[in-house]
C-alpha cells in the first residue's frame, strides 16, 4: 500500500461546534477511508446532523479542522505559516468534493428533474449543455427515474424527489457523499426505494457517510457504525459488533429504545 492510498478521504480533527452556550460537538475525531460506508446513529440532539453540516462547512466549526483527501476544508494558508478562514468563493470550490443529501430533499422547484442534476454539471463543472444533460439523464436512470426526466419536483413523490437529490449529488463526482437522515421525511412505503438507491451507490465504491434511524439498513450496508451521544463518538465498529455486542451502556440503552419503542414513555 502506498502512502497515498492510506490518506483517508475524510479526516475530522478536534471538531467542536457551540451554538450559544450549548456545545453540540465536543472535540470529535474521525477518519473515513476511501470506499467506506459509514452509518452514524444516535438519539436526536446527539450532534449527528451538525457533524455532517460542519464537514462541508454549511456550519462553520467553532474549532477543529476538516481534511478532504489531505487538504483543509474552509481554511487557507495565511502566508505566515498559519491558517485563516477561506472565502465563500474558495469554499464553493472545496465543496465540489463533498456531496450532500438533505433530509427534505431541497430540490430546485423551478427546474425539471433533469435540470436539477444538470445545472451543477453545467454551471459548476463547466460541462457543455448537451453533454451535461446526457450525463444527468444517465445518472437519473441509475436511480430508476429514466421516465421522469422532464417532471418538476412538485410532480414527483417524496421518494422520487430524494432519488433525484441523490443523483444530483453523485453526478458531481464527489470524493464523499453525506446523507442527512435521507428517509426520515418520507412516508414508510417510500423509504425502501431511497435506501436501495443509496445502497447501489455505496456498493459501487462511493465513499458514504449516512445519518439514519434505519438500523436494519445500517446493518446491511455499513462497513462501520458510529454511535454518537452528546456531541461525541461513544462507540464505533463493525455493525455486527455495535448492534450485536455493544460495549457501552449508552449504546445498549439507545438500541433497546429502538428495538422496543413501546417501552418509551409517551406523555
Amino acid at each position: 500500500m502506498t502512502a497515498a492510498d492510506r490518506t483517508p478521504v475524510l479526516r475530522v480533527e478536534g471538531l467542536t461546534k457551540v451554538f450559544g452556550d450549548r456545545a453540540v460537538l465536543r472535540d470529535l475525531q474521525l477518519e473515513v477511508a476511501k470506499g467506506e460506508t459509514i452509518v452514524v446513529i444516535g438519539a436526536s440532539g446527539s450532534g449527528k446532523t451538525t457533524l455532517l453540516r460542519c464537514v462541508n462547512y454549511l456550519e462553520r466549526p467553532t474549532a477543529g479542522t476538516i481534511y478532504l483527501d489531505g487538504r483543509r476544508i474552509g481554511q487557507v494558508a495565511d502566508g505566515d505559516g498559519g491558517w485563516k478562514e477561506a472565502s465563500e468563493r474558495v469554499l464553493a470550490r472545496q465543496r465540489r468534493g463533498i456531496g450532500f443529501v438533505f433530509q427534505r430533499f431541497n430540490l430546485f422547484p423551478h427546474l425539471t428533474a433533469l435540470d436539477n442534476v444538470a445545472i451543477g454539471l453545467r454551471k459548476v463543472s463547466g460541462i457543455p449543455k448537451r453533454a451535461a444533460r446526457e450525463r444527468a439523464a444517465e445518472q437519473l436512470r441509475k436511480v430508476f427515474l429514466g421516465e421522469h426526466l422532464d417532471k418538476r419536483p412538485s410532480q414527483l413523490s417524496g421518494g422520487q424527489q430524494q432519488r433525484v437529490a441523490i443523483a444530483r449529488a453523485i453526478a458531481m463526482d464527489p470524493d464523499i457523499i453525506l446523507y442527512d437522515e435521507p428517509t426520515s421525511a418520507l412516508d414508510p412505503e417510500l423509504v425502501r426505494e431511497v435506501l436501495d438507491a443509496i445502497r447501489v451507490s455505496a456498493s459501487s465504491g462511493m465513499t458514504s457517510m449516512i445519518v439514519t434511524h434505519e438500523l436494519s439498513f445500517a446493518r446491511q450496508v455499513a462497513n462501520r457504525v458510529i454511535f454518537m451521544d452528546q456531541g461525541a463518538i461513544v462507540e464505533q465498529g463493525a455493525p455486527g459488533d455495535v448492534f450485536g455486542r455493544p460495549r457501552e451502556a449508552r449504546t445498549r440503552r439507545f438500541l433497546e429504545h429502538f428495538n422496543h419503542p413501546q417501552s418509551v414513555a409517551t406523555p
Partner: protein
Amino acid sequence: MTIDWGIVETSIPLLSRGLLVTLQISVVSGILACVLGFTLGLCALSHVRALRVAVGGYVDFIRGTPLLIQIFLVFFALPTIGIRLDEVWAGITALAFNTSGYIAETVRGAVGSIERGQTEAAKSIGMTNPQILGYILLPQAMRPIVPPLTNELISMTKNSSLLSVISVYELTRAGQAIISVHFVPFEIYLLLALFYYGLIKSLSLLSRWVERRMPVL
C-alpha cells in the same frame, strides 16, 4: 354646464403629444428604477452589514418623504453640488430613485423568503454566491416579485403627473398649458383624467397578461 366641444377637439392632438412624453418618461424611469431597485434589493441581502444599513437608510428616506419634495430636491438641490440636469432628466431621475426604493423592498422580501434549504443545496454542489442568486434564488423569486413590481411601475406612471411642477411638458403640463390660454379647466381636467385612465388601464391589463404567463412552480 355646457362642454366646449371645439376646445376638446383641438386639445386632443396637443394632449396626445403630452401623453407620448409621459410614456417615454415612464419607460425610461421604469427601466432605471428596475435596475437600481434590483441592485439595492440584492445589496440589502448582502453579508456586508454596511451595505444593508446603507440600503435600509435609502429606502427609509424614500418612503418617509413625499415624492413632490424628492422631485424638488433633484431639480433644485443637485445643481448646487454641480450636477445639472434639464427638467426632463431631473424628473426621470427623481421618479427612478423614488420607485427603486419600493422595488428594492419587494426584491429583498421575495428573495429573502426563499427557504434556506435552496441556498444550502446550491452550496452543496459547489455554486458560488452569484451563481446561487442568478440560477436558483432570482428565478424562484420572480413570480412573487412581478405583481407588486408592476403595481409600482403603474403608480410611478401616475405619479409622473407631478413632474408638471418642474415644467416637464408631459400630459398634465400639456393640459395646464391649454387651460392657461383658453381657461377651460373642466373640459381639460376631464380629458386628462380620461387619458390617464386609458393609459393606466392598458398598463394594468398588460401586467395581468404578463403575470398569467409566469410559470407556476
